[in-house]
């Protein structure tokens, strides 16, 4: 796993204590698109299951993740596809 993916994992684990966390680097699918960089780590798909999302709507859930990953989103990460669920959903 690359350095950016590792940072995403670490930050989400600390902030959300997820039951399940999957991070996929999709950068290769975006060859030649804007935002694509050599070496990848520009496009990610992240799936998180966390108690922290219970009672939050979709926008609130993504805002929570945007806060946690603000540094990555304003830097190396061009696009983040997100699936945020609470346990049992």
């Amino acid at each position, binding site marked *: 796993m690359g350095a950016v993916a590792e940072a995403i994992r670490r930050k989400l684990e600390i902030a959300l204590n997820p039951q399940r966390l999957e991070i996929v680097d999709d950068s290769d699918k975006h060859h030649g698109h804007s935002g694509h960089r050599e070496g990848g780590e520009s496009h990610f798909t992240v799936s998180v299951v966390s108690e922290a999302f219970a009672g939050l709507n*979709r926008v609130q859930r*993504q805002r929570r993740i945007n806060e946690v990953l603000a540094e990555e989103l304003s830097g190396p990460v061009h696009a983040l596809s997100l699936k945020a669920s609470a346990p049992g959903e």
Partner: protein
Amino acid sequence: MTDVTQFEPTGPGPDEAIDTQHAVHTFIADTLQANPVVLFMKGEPEQPRCGFSALTVQILDHLGVPFVGVDVLQNDDLRQGIKAFSDWPTIPQLYVNGEFVGGCDIVKEMFQAGELKTLFKQQGLIEA
């Protein structure tokens, strides 16, 4: 049934940065007030310049809801301004009747769950 709104930057005033921020904010607020469904996107609805914007346009077209597309790539102040306005770091961004609905992931999830169609019906934007 799409339309494109152009942002016309005003000339520099005594404090250019604040004037520009103010002009962008006013443009966004006016656009949201004047149009029930607004998509801030990369490229124009007929020619999106990003896969996530393209997918969101496809969903709106599929549901048959009239919307206004605002190309944030036309102006960097607008591109940054909409992120600050919504407190949302990514493009596209969908607004319905002035309310922020979400970005591409949320629009896709709501579409798949039938919630987006319900929302447009409830707001009287598509035939019930």
